[in-house]
Each structure stands twice: as structure tokens, then as C-alpha cells.
């Protein structure tokens, strides 16, 4: 199945405006409305063609939903549609102060992990979360107000770093011995 054949945008598929700011409740409703129409279970007694079409549409709708639900992926998708693809794999040049802070955080993570300091991990997580929130706000401004996809793409690249780091923090916290209850 070639998904690129479809010219319809993920937003159009769910009848949503093509903006970064998104009403998640509306996305949920739209997703269920679409699945209720096209889920393969609706066509289990249908012709093979109907089954195939349903499978393709439902898969595409589920994939589109994953992209839209995740703010970083949604931003990256919008940047690409507006001619400023994020290209995280080729474009790794980041501002020096950002990289420096990343290094500091990583050292802090190693120390906290070694010390088994779950409260410290939580504090670090909140710091990262705060920066993520600020960058999200910058993306909203760049995409929905200034129409500056290049600026948004830079923020997305930074957020990809932050996301990966947040995941590492989560794993480190999960790996700490749990209090038994």
C-alpha cells in the first residue's frame, strides 16, 4: 500500500483546520466518527474490494491520528507541508548554548541515576518539561501567527532532543526500585 498516493492532508481527513493549535477533544470525536464509518469490521461481510479499501483508509486514519495527537510530530508535519522540512537526521547543527545545556542535563541524569535519587529525577523532569512548554508556545506563534515555518522547524529539532531525553528520564525513574505497597 502506498500512502503517499493520498493527497488529502491529515487535517482534512478529520475535518480539522490546518493549525498547530488543536482541539484534542475534537480530534478524538472526529477519529471515532471516521473509524465508525471505515473500520474493516464494518466490511467483514463485504466484497474483497471493500475490505481492502476499508483496511487502507482505517490504517491511514490511524497513522494520521498518531501524527496529529503528538505535538512534536504535528509540528514537524506542518513544517513539511509549509516547505520547511525538519530533516532531523541531516540537520544536526544546534545552537551552542542548547547543546551545552543538554550536556549538563545528561551529566545530572547520570549522577541522579547512580544515586538512586527519584526526587531529583522528578525535579529534572520538571525543568525539561518547562522548556518543552516554552518551545511549544514558540511553535504556536511561528506556525499559527507569524507563518514562519523555518523558525518552527528549529524549535521542533530542539524538541526532538528534549523528547528523547524525557524518555530516558522516564526509563531511569522506572528502573529505580519501587516502594512496595
Amino acid at each position: 500500500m502506498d500512502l503517499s498516493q493520498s493527497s488529502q492532508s491529515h487535517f482534512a481527513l478529520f475535518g480539522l483546520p490546518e493549525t498547530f493549535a488543536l482541539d484534542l477533544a475534537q480530534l478524538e470525536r472526529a477519529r471515532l466518527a471516521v473509524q465508525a464509518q471505515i473500520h474493516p469490521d464494518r466490511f467483514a461481510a463485504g466484497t474483497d474490494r471493500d475490505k481492502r479499501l476499508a483496511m487502507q483508509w482505517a490504517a491511514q486514519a490511524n497513522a494520521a491520528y498518531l501524527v496529529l495527537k503528538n505535538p512534536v510530530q504535528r509540528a514537524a508535519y506542518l513544517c513539511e507541508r509549509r516547505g520547511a522540512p525538519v530533516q532531523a537526521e541531516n540537520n544536526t547543527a544546534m545552537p551552542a548554548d542548547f547543546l551545552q545545556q543538554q550536556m549538563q542535563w545528561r551529566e545530572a541524569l547520570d549522577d541522579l541515576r547512580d544515586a538512586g535519587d527519584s526526587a531529583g529525577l522528578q525535579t529534572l523532569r520538571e525543568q525539561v518539561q518547562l522548556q518543552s512548554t516554552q518551545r511549544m508556545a514558540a511553535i504556536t506563534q511561528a506556525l499559527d501567527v507569524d507563518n514562519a515555518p523555518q523558525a518552527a522547524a528549529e524549535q521542533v529539532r530542539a524538541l526532538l532532543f528534549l523528547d528523547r531525553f524525557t524518555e530516558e528520564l522516564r526509563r531511569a525513574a522506572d528502573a529505580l526500585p519501587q516502594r512496595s505497597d
Partner: protein
Amino acid sequence: MALLQISEPGQSPDPHQHRRAIGIDLGTTHSLVAAVRSGTPQCLPDAQGQVLLPSVVHYHADGRAEVGLRAREEQAIDPANTIVSVKRFMGRSPADLPEHALAHYRIAEDSRMVRFQTAAGEMTPVQVSADILRVLRWRAEDTLGGELVGAVITVPAYFDDGQRQATKDAAQLAGLHVLRLINEPTAAALAYGLDHGAEGLYVIYDLGGGTFDLSVLRLSRGVFEVVATSGDTALGGDDFDQRLMDLMLAQAGAPALLPTLTPSQQRQWRMAARTAKEILSDQESTFFSAPLPDGTTWSATLHRAEFEEACADLVQRTLNLLRRALSDAQLQAAEMQGVVLVGGATRMPMIRTAVERAMGKAPLTDLDPDQVVALGAAIQANALAGNAGADDVLLLDVIPLSLGIETMGGLVEHILPRNSTIPQARSQDFTTFRDGQTAMAIHVVQGERELVSDCRSLARFELRGIPPMVAGAARIRVTFAVDADGLLEVSAQELTTGVQAQVQVKPAYGLDDAQIAQMLQDSVAHAQDDRDARMLQEARVDAQALLAATRAAMQIDRDLLSPEEDAQIHAGMTALAQAERGADIDQIRNATADLIRQTDAFAERRMNRSIQRALSGQPVDHIARLTDAQPSGTR
């Protein structure tokens, strides 16, 4: 109701005709078959009134396969020819299994898959499972009074791709048309949710004979959405039996006792352990007795507390998986509306106590934990068969394990994360590593770990014919598509040239299509005439269904067609109607294929319109009622 499959009044087959569809719970220790009868899901009993069919098959020298209670009773007499807990072997190689699992059997030398050498010949786990399924199929046909349109088979949510494919192969071999594979906890949620009108977040804790599954579901106005799942396909009631047996063996003498027992005596110990476990669910102590190598009987009193202590780590394993599922879903135990216990092993008081402590609320146990999965499967089978009045529910299930491919250095690049809703499709681009590289080996793996060696290998295939370019210049798009049964198909395409390769991921330890076809042929000895008549009948039914669907579609959405398209479709319908009255199979098939091709674009546009209507809040149901003699489900 779906728009594309509606027929207009007078054109449809009798709308009151019930299409017989069944749900099957193919379990490690027991299997069940259920169907919706007079609007109510029911498990179907055998002639003796039993609904549970022990999943035990005894192969006789004359080729006969004895399935069920008799076979279970014979296991101690003839252990090598009596296959128990075959579900544990599905889609697995001998190396995947613990040694004690294979101990009683004669296993053929084959590193890819388990082959039991029995008195009736070599049997694969797929064949053994098919023998169980066939008995359930016959039972259903006898009870329901005719041929079945299909079956929904349940599998543990945590089954990987190979185990699912093996299950589907077994059903096919048993002569069942698989409407859908659905996950056991999801089936249980369906039965429970519809029965209780439940809304909110629920945990389904499913401890079966050989597998443990856990799903977190959100139930809301007919939508059953799985938000997270976890489990262990090698943890179940059997393991508790094993612990009890080990405990008793240790008391009876030495750990060294086991190897001195004959296979038949070992089976007797195992059966005694099972019985003792069941008694301890109701009583504080039980009397245990089993044979010693010298033929005398050893016996002792066993207290529930001792048994529970011996199993504490097993229970803890399930609780750890419960914690992980909630963490994946970013939910707290307190947010759960309820926890439903499924599977015979949840009758053990230690499970109920542990779950209650972990969740902070008493588990729900009012539906029979042995039957609830089969009942849910029957409800879904009834709906998928297109029966009027079926509950209009939507099941949104997920993949249990992440899917990815191997990249340089033995690392895994995950393409589809676990808990992604199915069906699902996602692409990712890769490139070449060396200058002039003309082929790329694609190794598909399943699992959460970052090293390929820690994940399960599903398939390997090659994309060849990449034009020589410098390293990093080629663009290879790898697409993973998981269908509604949870089965994976992977394709790869070099974008600059369009060279393509694809593979339907057949289990690395399974059967290939040719083997299945051969087995089917061996098992169905139809005369040639018989088969021809059947094929003609099938072609006609397909043609009639397509004509009816097309006619109905034209009536509703004709405005989506240009005059030329309209004329073309009409011509196609006339040609097909004419062919269908004749007896030339090829002509009917060709005319059917023509009409399908002529209406492809129309079908796309109609689906698109149905989505647009659903999104704009227009009632879609009233369109269905205009054309369908039966009102659609209203729940």
C-alpha cells in the same frame, strides 16, 4: 452500519435469514465455542452437556484423533501420543520452549518448528490445534443446524505475529473461515461491557492455562478502545500446577525423584497437582497423593498457605505487568472504573487478593471466567457476519509489541510502537551504507529492546536491483502495514527507481502457504464434480452480492458519477447479470472482476463521502434505513 454493504429491499437475500457465525476461545487447557442465539450469546455444549472441551488430543495408531475429556483421561496411559497445552507450542521453535514442556514427547529434529512424532504420524502444533477446532466446528454445525459463514478466534493479546499466523492457519486447516482474530481480553471486555452497560476505564486481568494477558480499555458509547496492553505468553495456570508439583516432589523425597518416574507417572503427578490446585481454591487444605517409582502411593496434606508461598513470585510477575500497562497508558490504578478477572486460574484466592490490593478495589467476577472470552467472540462474530440487530460496537485494538527493522550494528529501528491502534500503516526511509550497494537485507523484528538479539525475529527479505549509487544516496522506503487481525505485511521500495519488494510476514517457525494448501487438500477429499459445482455456486453468490451492493450504491450516490462512468457501470452490471445466469465459471469471474474494476473509483468516493457526512454531523444512519429492510443496531 456500513454504507457499502447495504442492499435494497427485494434485492437482498432474506434479511431475516440468520448467518451462522461462531466465536471460539482456543485455550491452553480448555477450548469453547459460542454463538449468538435469539439475541443472546451462549456457549454451546456437547452431547453430554459440557461446554468446556479439554484442549488435549490423543493420536491413535489407526490415525484417529481423540479430542477432549477422553484424551485427557488417556494422557497418563499414553503420554507420548497425547498432546496437552498445544497452545504453548504455536509459532514456536523447540529452542523457544523450556525443556520440561517437551519432556514427554518424541520431537522430530527440526530447528524451525516443533513436530510431534505420534502413533498417527508427525503432527505440527498447527495440526493439533486444527483437530481441536474441527471438533468445535462440528459441535456448532450440529447445534446450529447448518454450515457456518465464519468464526472469530481469540488469541492472547500478547501473541506475536508468528503465534497469530499459526492460529489462523490452524483455523483454515479445520475448515473454518476466519472472520477475525481478536484479543482475548478485548473479547472479555465486549461480553462484560455489553452485559453491564459499562462506561469508563477498565482493566482486564486474564490469567489462562498458559498465557497471561492484561489490557486497559476505555469503554464509551459502544466504542471499546484498548489503550494499553501487556502480558507474558509463557505464564499461566500450568505454572502454578508446576510449582505445586515441585513442592510435593520436594516433600516426597528429593528433587531427584522426578527423573526416576515413568512418563506415565509424571503425568499422574501433574494431574494430581492440578486437582489439588482446584480444591485449594475452595478449601484451606487438601489431601495429595501420587505414585512413587516402586509403584507405591505417596500422600500428604497440603495447606493453601504453603502453595501460595510457593507461587508468590508468579503472582508478583503479573502485578509488575499490570504496573507497566498503567504506566504505558499514563494512568493510575485509582482512575480505573473496575477490574475484570478472566481465565480459570483467576479462581485462585491468591490472585483475587493480590489484584484487589494492587487496584484498591474488589475485582468483578460475576461472569464465568471460563466462558466470558468465548461469549465476547460470539458477539463479535455475529456482528461481523452482518446479522441485523447485532450490537453496533466498534472495537479499536492495538499491537502488543513494537515492530521494527534491523539497522547497522545489530540495532533495532522501531517503526510501529507498541499500543498503536490497528489497522495501522507507517513508512520510514532508509539509505545504503556502502558505495555501489545494490541490495538491502531487511530483517523484521518484534520487541521493545534496542538490540536485535533481544527481539524476536519475524522475517528476512531482500530488496534487490538498487542502482549503484554513493553511500547514503538511495532512498529506500520501508512500509509496515498491520491488518485488523494484527498480522503484519512489510514492503520496501527504492524511491528513485521504483524497485519493489514485499513480504507477508509468515512466521519464521510456521508453515508456508504451499504446506497449508497441501494439508487442506489432504484433509478435504472432494470429488472433482463436487468441487466444480461448489466453485460455480461460490462464483454466483459473489456475483449476486456485488450486483446487489452496486445497485444499492447507485441508488444512493449516483451523483458521484460522471455520465460516462454511469453508463460504463450499467454496462458492467448487465454483463455480469447475464454471465451469472450462465454456468461458465470463468465468464462469471471475469465479469465480476470487470465490474469491481469499473466501480473502484466509485467505492473510494463513496467512502470519502461517508466520512465527510460523519464529520459534518449529518446522521448517516437514516441513509441506511432508507435502503435496509431491517433497522440497524441502535445501541
